[in-house]
């Protein structure tokens, strides 16, 4: 995956990202880590094209994220809470997207939905509403939904932060298995043990800046005092 951030800044009421610069070309599983409020969630949202940056440019796999409407068709996004449409069954959550936004005939859409739900081990839950499945199952269904549009890049924004430890494991195992699919991943998470297993590049952020970056070894051998401090707190 190619990631290119150039002078990237973002402001809500105050500036939350300050002139970020990052060029990556050869990693397919990038983890963004940092304290709450470090800007990592904002950054992943900008990278996925959910929000427009206040200034600077942002390219993912040569798409100009901010200006190319084609880009969104090639990304999947998994939110902190499952964010399924609550009035639709797990399966319909997927088929509606495929049918209406990808112009796939319903029958084919159902096959794709079933295949993806099966991949996430939800074959018995397909016809249930999100409220009638566990948080972990709902989150896995939302991963299935993100996969079903056949994205090149899958963004996962703290996909387990709303789950208890057992469900967290369940979802993380599912995500780990997705590595086999050969897609690109950008992940925000607080679970450092998972970052070490899953990611091949880590970006550590603090107060809207990229403070340290590198392969996951930096987690065990941090160079900056900030990352050292962070690692001592999360352990």
């Amino acid at each position, binding site marked *: 995956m190619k990631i290119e951030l150039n002078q990237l800044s973002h402001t809500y009421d105050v500036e939350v990202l300050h002139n970020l610069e990052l060029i990556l070309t050869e990693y397919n599983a990038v983890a963004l880590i940092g304290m709450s409020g470090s800007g990592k969630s904002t950054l992943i949202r900008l990278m996925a094209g*959910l929000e427009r940056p206040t200034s600077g440019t942002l390219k993912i796999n040569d798409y100009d994220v901010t200006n190319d409407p084609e880009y969104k068709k090639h990304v999947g996004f998994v939110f902190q809470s499952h964010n399924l*449409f609550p009035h639709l069954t797990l399966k319909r959550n997927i088929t509606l997207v495929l049918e*209406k*936004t990808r112009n796939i005939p319903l029958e084919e859409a159902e096959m794709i939905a079933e295949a993806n739900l099966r991949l996430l081990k939800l074959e018995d839950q397909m016809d249930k509403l999100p409220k009638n499945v566990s948080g972990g199952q709902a989150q896995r269904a939302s991963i299935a939904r993100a996969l079903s549009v056949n994205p090149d890049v899958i963004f996962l924004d703290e996909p387990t932060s709303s789950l208890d430890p057992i469900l967290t494991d369940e979802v993380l195992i599912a995500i780990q298995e997705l590595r086999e699919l050969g897609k690109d991943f950008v992940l925000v998470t607080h679970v450092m043990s998972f970052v070490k297993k899953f990611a091949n590049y880590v970006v550590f952020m603090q107060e809207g800046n990229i403070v340290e970056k590198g392969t996951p070894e930096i987690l065990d051998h941090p160079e900056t005092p900030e990352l050292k401090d962070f690692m001592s707190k999360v352990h």
Partner: protein
Amino acid sequence: MNKSDNPNPLTALLQNKIVAYALAFATILAFITFVILRQTGSFSLAVYDPYVALIRNGLLNTIIVSTVALVSSLVIGFIFYLMSISKIQYFRAFTEVFTEIIYGTPLLVLIVISAFVIGPAFNSLDRNTMGYIGLITYMTPYMKNVYKSAISSISEEQYLAMDLFGFTPYQKYRYIIIPQVIRVLMPPMMNNFSQIVKGSALLNVIAYDELFYSIRVAQSQNFAFIEGYMLVWVLYLVITIPLSQLTRTIERRWSL
């Protein structure tokens, strides 16, 4: 001691759901019967036989006025909702001031002012219409709130997801927003309907021949006041209780 192990058969009986509800109902019925018997030795609804047509007409009018008020306040309430989120500050200010005034006004006062003060000022409008308008006006801010809570029940994140997948605005409303809004909207809307039915009884003060007024007309001729009040009470319950039961069913089935 564990509750379920309680050996006392009386306690066990009171714990039974059907028995509990039957007893609760019987308690209230017993009280009413006691009160009636204190007032009259010969409670008989037969004196209302000649007025069946009159009362049926009143009942029908109550249902009609309530339905009209419901539909109208749904429409006007929506316009009101749109005004309350408008970019134009005057609209937002207007809905806020209006809501505050209506919240502070008893329905009875609103009906009387509507029919006897505002109506005559525009002398083309008759009293009954003004009564309707009073009732509709009263419900408008409540309906606005129903819309507000229903629409705000769709999270920001859902909109982000819709954008990301690339739904068109029409598709968003048709497949995602409206189906959810209707589910959330139904129960409070039905509660408002019940409120309208009950509130419509106050239209009797402007001599609109709804249910309560019909009973008063009958009472003025047969002097069977106790029977009349009991009858009108039961007839309102006949409308409102099924309505609230239906509301609960919808709430249960449709909740998200």
